[in-house]
């Protein structure tokens, strides 16, 4: 369902151009505002809708199967850590508001900087372990599963 941009709300800031995974939100050179240059490569992923600081981008269902007159709007707020949706049916009988969390941490604070953690020992380098393992596999003192520990062998042929 292709996105489209409201003329009076867009100020040409380019946030949508910057985020679109399909490279289809471009700035019109004459109007200096964004528009969808290739609707048939739009996945309706809403990345641009969520990124637009002016709620200037909306979606109108694909012309080949979606009738007019519906609305699915969204506001994503990284500071509050929430996403709020509103769905309106064509016939007006359903008007839903749905809220969901998008993160449990202040934005961007939970991820470690691996250049600053203790370097792996040579023993660990020669093992099958990854960063934070084995601890993070089971969150206890257990080790990594191996064929031997689990009593398994790999055998050629038809076995089920």
């Amino acid at each position: 369902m292709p996105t489209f941009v409201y003329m009076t709300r867009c100020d040409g800031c380019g946030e949508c151009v910057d985020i679109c995974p399909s490279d289809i939100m471009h700035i019109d050179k004459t109007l200096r505002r964004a528009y969808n240059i290739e609707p048939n490569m739009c996945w309706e992923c809403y990345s641009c809708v969520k990124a637009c600081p002016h709620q200037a981008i909306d979606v109108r269902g694909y012309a080949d199967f979606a009738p007019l007159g519906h609305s699915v709007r969204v506001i994503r707020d990284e500071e509050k850590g929430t996403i709020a949706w509103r769905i309106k049916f064509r016939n007006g009988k359903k008007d839903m508001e749905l809220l969901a969390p998008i993160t449990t941490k202040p934005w961007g604070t939970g991820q470690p900087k691996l250049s600053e953690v203790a370097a792996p020992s040579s023993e660990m380098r020669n093992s099958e372990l990854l960063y934070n393992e084995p601890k993070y596999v089971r969150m206890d003192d257990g080790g990594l599963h191996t064929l031997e520990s689990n009593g398994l062998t790999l055998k050629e042929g038809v076995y089920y």
Partner: protein
Amino acid sequence: MGYKTIIEDNIDVLVVGAGLGGTGAAFEARYWGQNKKIVIAEKANIDRSGAVAQGLYAINCYMGTRWGENNPEDHVRYARMDLMGMVREDLAFDMARHVDSAVHQFEEWGLPLMKDPDTGHYLREGRWQIMIHGESYKPIVAEAAKKSADKVFNRICVTHMLMDDAKENRVAGAVGFNVRTGNYHVFKSKTVICGAGGASNIFKPRSVGEGAGRVWYAPWSSGSAYGLMIDAGAKMTQMENRIVLARFKDGYGPVGAYFLHLKTYTQNGLGEEYESKWFPALTEMVGKEYLDTEGQHLSHKPIPTCLRNHAFINEVNAGRGPIHMVTMEAFQDPHLEEIGWHNFLGMTVGQAVLWAATDVDPKYENPELTTSEPYVMGSHATGCGAWCSGPEDVSPDEYFWGYNRMTTVEGLFGAGDAVGGTPHAFSSGSFTEGRLAAKAACKYIDDGKAEGIKVSEQQIADFKAKIYKPMETYKVYRNEIVAGSVNPHYINPRQGLDRLQKMMDEYCGGFGVNYMTNEKLLQIGLRKMKVFGEDLESIAAEDIHELLRAWELKHRYLTSESVFQHTLFRKETRWPGYYYRGDAMKLDDENWHVLTVSQRDRKTGEYTMEKAPLYHLVGDAEE
């Protein structure tokens, strides 16, 4: 052309494509190579790129060993059953034994995982799936990759791998162009981890016109994982194993949560259960090992996805469509109703838009389902991809050549869709594969395997000429015509994509022929593909955006050619419901209980096919 050449030199680990696989690779590489230079080249913006750009409402691969829920081998057996036996079980076991540690880190990074209020465990959707509020899954994971990488190059369409001029069959980096500035980018690197995506839009989609972007897998998944690696001469496996999805009609909204969590079920147009009546004939086709309905009931083995598709397709062909998802019961519970809608908003908003547009309220109406066009990928319920080495402590000799997840090209590693034979990895498993590849890539460098790489100026110049050729073609021939897109000298990328999709659909088993093909059709298709390959030399791009589409098309073409070759090679119908070889309608374990492996000669473009042995995990007790 006035585009600059920008060279990024002395890279240790270059990550090409930063979806879940690539972000896992970049993140982990920093731990094993704290002083190494780690660079990401991403076609879009890493915050919203790859198949998870839109978000996910579930993590489909989580063992839960911490709560004694499953062991890695249980997951391998499940994937094996679902893929009719065709799984690289060493790789699958390795992914499964590590995957929980990725998920536990996601939680720490702020990804909201739902909890079971009674047990405190992650809320299960099904045996392997846990439910999440994953709208920001990708930006959260991207943040970790960004903290690890020295540099992130967004908007670089990587077109080719650079190859070492000093040593045959060794990677030396990658080249591409910036889709904003148009500049030519050269990345000289000791190793490359290919995290590029699988292929949507190679088979004609059911949607038409404006709706053609409404494909199940992201439209930006341009088969670049395969295009790049095939072009570099890497061996590929299981490329015939395309996947067809039974999904909500038109919007392709996911059904997993509906089946597993909301306990909805399907019925035909007459309101009848229809699956089981197709099973006796199916058992004839595939054998009792693969579909033993009575035994399966007892052993709790799931019915393979392709076989359920088969029942769906045949029921519709018998005139008893449409197939409906029975939602009217579950949706009476307001809590379940809300989950049903959240599920779409979190990962396929378009389905919510469609139901709003068509006034389909699943509380009062059972929505229609459909079977999709086929897709070629390696992380969902299918295992297309590169033939990669497994881990040292698990893999038999035929599956091991020194470095985990390394392809048959030295220094070129894969993750996610790029790795063949590892279905059911999904998002968390793809991330895990990236981590495994990163550790191995660092080891490869530390072992001195990347010494003495040489990249000639000639190679760099040749790729540059090649990359911009579609723009040259446009410039030379555009003004021979008055206006419009009909030109006797060239085709544009959209025209090329339409032609590819038509060939794939009609000759390689798309939805338009009910997923049916045979040797004759495949051979005709391959002849047409050869001519199409010649025409792709005459593709024209009006601007940089079209140049992006031109190179995506070339990657889709290489992917498709490989699908044709593999489908021709495997003379059996291994996955009824995904595709049928009409000239060999039965599963044939005597001749085809093997993995198919191909290689396209870098110079001649000729294919060679071989069979590789299949190893299965066998418990000591079973022996």
